[in-house]
């Protein structure tokens, strides 16, 4: 998959995985059930709070303001953190971020790294890079630990191993770790706890992401339930934070709002078990914060696309999406699945590679309805569709454009319209005599009957009625 020169460049876009978008797999039956349950209960939680809609609007405005002042806020954050002895670095792309991490690892003679969950490090494929340099990289979030052992990509933003049954985890732990087989959840969790404790205590460096980087106070905010982020970042002597530039918020006083939104939208919790507000290194420890661009500044060139950078990575849109529920995370080909993935991936990886993603949606709008920062995801999707057919991308098709031009011509007036509809009616009537249905017709009749063609159209009924009544 990765050749020796490209291994630094971050996660490749796996185009072939997109096939999964078109044909849902029965293996995701559990995923669908779990997502549906999560979405329903989280919606109920939100509905019970009278202020929830106000919160969403306030968060939306704050995120907008943050982006509008992004350069100033980054500098402010940097200044405040530096004053506490934190090293703040900037990486233009995944390759540079990987190089920076390797440099830090070399400087501190790092042999093993414990990692808390971070989507940005997935963009970088940091684990591969570290392994390539002879450094052990261990994912500590239980779900990430499982998919790492299985050498798979995560299936979901918040529950990475949702597609694994307990039996499958038991077999995995038995095969890869030599542990006695068990399909009991408590026993499996205990195995992970035992193994990972040893890793925490031996690790030379901890890597985490960052949910919010607060500019005015200089604070790195990390939320989690397992305690793995707390341990990964406090046991080793060095802690490296990887964070996207868009995660900045201006004021610490905005934090209670975001914490109240994030827990509930992500997992239906009031607050996650551990909410870390990190000011700087503890005495004797070293803290680095690396900001990653990796295509985010490109998004800022288009004011209509800004909203996609508001995302706080809660996963609510995934749970709500009827498409994601059935096709799972891998089909999106890159780091971010679901509706936000269909928007962010084309922006960050380019429409040329990911142009199909915005079309993998019925535009039902369930995602936009649940987004805690009110990203209008359906509007972002149609906006990207427009770009995809006009810029270099797999969806830019001269043939299709001609078809739509012809269609627009047919819709140009009542007579042309009448002609086109006459042809359609004939086609539908004849369809049952055809031995095989081509292309779009076949795509319809694959699972559905065609509608009956009635004896008259509405227009003809109206004409008759009008002439009877003497009206026009």
């Amino acid at each position, binding site marked *: 998959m990765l050749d020796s020169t490209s291994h630094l460049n971050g996660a490749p876009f796996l185009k072939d995985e997109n096939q999964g978008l078109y044909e849902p797999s029965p293996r995701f039956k*559990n995923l669908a059930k779990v997502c549906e349950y999560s979405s329903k209960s989280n919606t109920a939680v939100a509905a019970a709070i009278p202020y929830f809609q106000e*919160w969403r609007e306030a968060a939306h*405005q704050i995120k907008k303001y943050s982006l*509008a002042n*992004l*350069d100033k806020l*980054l500098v402010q954050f940097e200044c*405040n953190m530096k004053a*506490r002895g934190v090293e703040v*670095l*900037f990486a233009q792309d995944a390759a*540079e971020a990987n190089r920076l991490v390797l440099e830090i690892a070399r400087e501190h003679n790092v042999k093993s790294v414990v990692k808390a969950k971070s989507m940005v490090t997935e963009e970088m494929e940091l684990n591969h890079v570290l392994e390539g340099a002879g450094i052990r990289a261990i994912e500590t979030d239980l*779900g990430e630990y499982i998919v790492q052992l299985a050498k798979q990509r995560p299936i979901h933003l918040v*529950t990475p*191993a949702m597609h694994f*049954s*307990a039996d499958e985890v038991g077999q995995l732990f038995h095969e890869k770790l030599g542990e006695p087989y068990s399909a009991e959840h408590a026993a499996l969790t205990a195995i992970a*706890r035992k193994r*990972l*404790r040893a890793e925490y*205590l031996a690790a030379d460096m901890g890597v985490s992401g960052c949910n919010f980087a*607060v500019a005015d*106070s*200089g*604070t790195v905010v990390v939320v989690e339930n*397992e*305690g793995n982020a*707390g*341990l990964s970042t*406090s*046991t080793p002597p060095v802690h490296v934070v990887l964070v996207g*530039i868009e995660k900045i918020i201006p*004021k*610490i006083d*905005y934090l*209670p709002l975001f*914490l*109240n939104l994030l827990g509930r939208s992500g997992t239906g*919790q*009031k607050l*996650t*078990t*551990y*909410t*870390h*507000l*990190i*000011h*700087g*290194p*503890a*005495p004797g420890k070293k803290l680095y914060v690396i900001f990653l*661009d990796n295509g985010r*500044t*490109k*998004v*800022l*060139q288009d*004011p*209509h696309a800004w909203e996609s950078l508001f995302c706080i990575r809660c996963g609510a849109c995934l749970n709500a999406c009827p498409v994601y529920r059935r096709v799972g995370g891998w089909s999106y080909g890159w780091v971010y699945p679901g509706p936000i993935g269909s928007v962010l991936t084309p922006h960050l990886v380019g429409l040329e590679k990911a142009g199909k993603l915005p079309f993998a949606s019925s535009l039902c709008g369930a995602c936009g309805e649940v987004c805690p920062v009110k990203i209008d995801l359906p509007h972002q999707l149609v906006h990207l569709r427009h770009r995809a057919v006009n810029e270099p991308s797999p969806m830019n098709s001269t043939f299709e454009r001609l078809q739509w031009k012809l269609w627009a011509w047919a819709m140009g007036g009542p007579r042309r319209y009448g002609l086109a509809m006459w042809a359609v009616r004939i086609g539908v009537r004849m369809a049952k005599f055809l031995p095989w249905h081509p292309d779009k017709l076949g795509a319809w009749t694959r699972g559905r009957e065609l509608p009956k063609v009635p004896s008259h159209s509405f227009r003809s009924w109206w004409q008759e009625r009008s002439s009877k009544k003497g009206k026009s």
Partner: protein
Amino acid sequence: MSSRDVILQRIRSGLTNAVAAGFGDLREPPVPEVWPRTNPESATLVSQFRTEMESLSGESILCPTMADARWQLAQLMQTAPWPRLGSLDRPLTRELTADLPVDRVDWVTSDWTPPQIEQLPAGLITADALLADTGSCVVHCSKATERLMCYLPPVCVVVARVNQLAEHLPAAWGPISKTCAAKDSQGEIVLITGPSRTADIEKILILGVHGPKRLVVLLVG
């Protein structure tokens, strides 16, 4: 030009488009209230805190006096059993452990190593504030050992006074905000809301995956 400057420049050029498109000149949004202040009575706060903790599978013990608290701690140590208790050195923890035999309490100082802390059967810490609406403990940890005491021992015991209870996070926010903004702050403030948990396998909830399996709050007063 450094990457820092390249990125900042790219941001600035992107933002000029925004100004042209009418997105510029936004005023700093006001700090939203989030939750209204209703200033409930102490008894209400205690009850709410305890209910929340229970729903999180945490344990809370109400001790009307310090003597009660000492007795409760002794009971905990006997029942578990914990041959010894590791504790951070604070006035409140000193008070709480005053009548325990000297060899039953290990005072965790900043030179303790992670493996040493990991060996403790239980750890005792204090909270800087408690949040009633979420059942949370607000803990300031400037030293590494203070952070580790929250996560490493399999049981985390928190001792706090009833008058440290706040209605919700906004009500307790003042001191938190101040510490975050202070130039000489080190380490972290952590909001601990129940014992460690995961639902990563089939969405079945399991406690104590990495952090403590048991969280016990001794509420004094």
